[in-house]
């Protein structure tokens, strides 16, 4: 390893990034855009579902139930209905997602312990279904008669969902730590893969391999600048997360950065491996998405890990993002120390070692 040669590659790469406006814009633009999207627009706790209420009882008790349900903020009345039939029509037409039907004999049913209120849910949207399920304390009871609607016994009191570490159930707090992982996975793999394939496409690689540069100098010199960019992105998300959504860092900031460095290295080495296979920048992008999609869907960022079927969990265990999410949520939200989560550390280090070895073995200083 010759430091002067390594440094020359790093400087060259930084100069090129500085002149590449698109990459430059992506470095800051992707974190800001994603943070805004996930923090504001995409609210995984559904609220304000369009609803209609058919209160046929019109007693003080029934009105109380309606008021309590509205107070949860999950449903928002958008239309008037007089009968359950009308609710079903509205559901079918997609005018509402949730219908609440209170029968005339509400008080009597309540007194005798029967099902007193029926909630009609647009079952074709699973997210809506589960959100409406929050309205009920008991699990959904499926009515086989009508596949589009399910009936839910309603409690007499509003549901109390107990959520640890995020009592207000604000999405942003859960999402920001995960977002660091998502953004690093997306940009780091792509930047490295494309940076090397681009040199091959433009013919620079033929020049580079005809010089005394070693494979290690070339690869490390190329990924180092992107590692620095990854840390800049991490800081940007942390800062914006704290300013905009008051996301806490309950553990040590150093632990957060160590976890980020491990994920950056894992993704850079994966990018290197992709670059040894991809023939064009377009192929490199395709391969990046091949890695990126399962990472987003299976890592536990979008859907709870425990709810996934076994094979999906096995795949998730291979992905560095899964382990990073457990690390970063542990450190940022639960205040855990990094070494309390040594399983995840070990998994990430193993992944980096494997990818790096494969990449260096596959990279040849020849045109064969």
């Amino acid at each position: 390893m010759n430091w002067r040669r390594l440094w020359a590659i790093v400087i060259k790469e930084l100069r090129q990034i500085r002149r590449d406006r698109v990459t430059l814009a992506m470095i800051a633009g992707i974190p800001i855009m994603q943070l805004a999207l996930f923090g504001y627009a995409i609210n995984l706790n559904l609220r304000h579902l369009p609803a209609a209420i058919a209160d046929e009882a019109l007693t003080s008790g029934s009105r109380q139930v309606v008021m309590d349900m509205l107070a949860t903020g999950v449903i928002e009345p958008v239309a008037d209905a007089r009968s359950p039939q009308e609710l079903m029509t509205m559901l079918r037409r997609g005018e509402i997602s949730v219908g609440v039907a209170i029968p005339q004999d509400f008080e009597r049913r309540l007194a005798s312990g029967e099902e007193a209120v029926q909630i009609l849910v647009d079952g074709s949207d699973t997210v809506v279904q589960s959100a409406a399920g929050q309205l009920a304390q008991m699990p959904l009871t499926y009515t086989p008669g009508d596949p589009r609607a399910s009936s839910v016994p309603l409690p007499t009191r509003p549901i109390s969902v107990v959520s640890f570490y995020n009592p207000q159930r604000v999405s942003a707090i859960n999402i920001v730590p995960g977002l660091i992982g998502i953004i690093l996975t997306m940009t780091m793999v792509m930047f490295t893969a494309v940076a090397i394939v681009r040199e091959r496409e433009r013919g620079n690689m033929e020049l580079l391999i005809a010089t005394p540069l070693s494979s290690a100098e070339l690869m490390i010199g190329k990924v180092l600048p992107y590692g620095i960019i990854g840390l800049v992105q991490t800081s940007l998300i942390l800062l914006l997360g704290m300013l905009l959504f008051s996301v806490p860092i309950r553990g040590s900031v150093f632990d957060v950065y160590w976890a980020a460095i491990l994920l950056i290295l894992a993704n850079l080495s994966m990018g290197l491996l992709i670059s040894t296979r991809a023939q064009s920048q377009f192929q490199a992008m395709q391969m990046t998405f091949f890695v990126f999609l399962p990472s987003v869907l299976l890592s536990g960022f979008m859907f709870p890990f425990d709810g996934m079927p076994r094979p999906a969990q096995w795949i998730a265990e291979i992905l560095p993002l899964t382990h990073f999410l457990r690390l970063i949520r542990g450190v940022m939200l639960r205040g855990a120390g990094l070494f309390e989560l040594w399983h995840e550390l070990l998994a990430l280090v193993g992944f980096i070692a494997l990818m790096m070895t494969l990449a260096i073995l596959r990279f040849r200083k020849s045109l064969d």
Partner: protein
Amino acid sequence: MTADDNIAIRARGLTKVFGNLRAVDDVDLTVEHRQVYGFLGPNGSGKSTSIRMLCGLLTPTSGEIEVLGLRIPDEAETLRQRIGYMTQQFSLFTDLTVRENLEFLAAVQNLSRRRTAERVDELLEEYHFTGRADQLAGTMSGGQRQRLALAGSVIHNPELLFLDEPTSAVDPESRRDFWEKLFELADAGTTILVSSHYMDEAERCHRLAILDKGRLVADGSPAELTGALEHRTLEVSAARPRSAKKVIVGVEGVLSAAQIGNSLRVLCTDTEGCAGRVEAALAAASVDAKVAQTPPNLEDVFVAVTNRQDTEQDREAS
């Protein structure tokens, strides 16, 4: 192989097979020090592949290579510090400036920081980039890019320089300047192996090898190569050269007839009686034409060696 003091490149039986294609087929080469050695051949004749094997960038399928006394590809890493290589496609960084490109190459070629500063200034001056040091390489003309690529490939004063079609995208004046630079380098003691498909460039080389379909079909100095065709080239001036050509190509012993303006350049397989037969045939077909001997050039050599192969193959086939 014994290292001969005066031999820079020696290759024996050099062969490269890509799938079904024999890109380079059993090529023997000897290049002496301080020579400008030319590789002449059409596109796809194996010039680039040969150069890449000689630099150690491609592993030959078979054959032995010795460059500057080093066995290639085994000792390619050592060789890389002693050679310069200019690729066919412009391979410097278009999004770096002239100075940044040169500084980068100096660093990867192990020049010290102080030496880099000196050498870059020296090259900027020598290669006429003084006012353009901060211009992006991508915004320069073809001729300027080639000059920059040459400056980059000699930054570490290599003993041996490989140039793969350096002037293919360059206007004639830039080509002339470029060759001036090559001869300056050769005078300073650099051995140069340059590929080209321009005949006028080939004529300037000390020695050259003609490649066709991966085979070495001729090698020698330009004078030796053209000398072998003495008295076999004719110039036929005719009022209607196209009808004259139709007659001439049918004459026994005529290899080719190419129209150049109002005259035809005719190449014969042998020196005996070809001119007479051509004259007789033209007279018999009552085409008005004048036949004269003309000195052979490299284009004739090229046609002769590549056509001869075809006719040999035809004869074998029939």
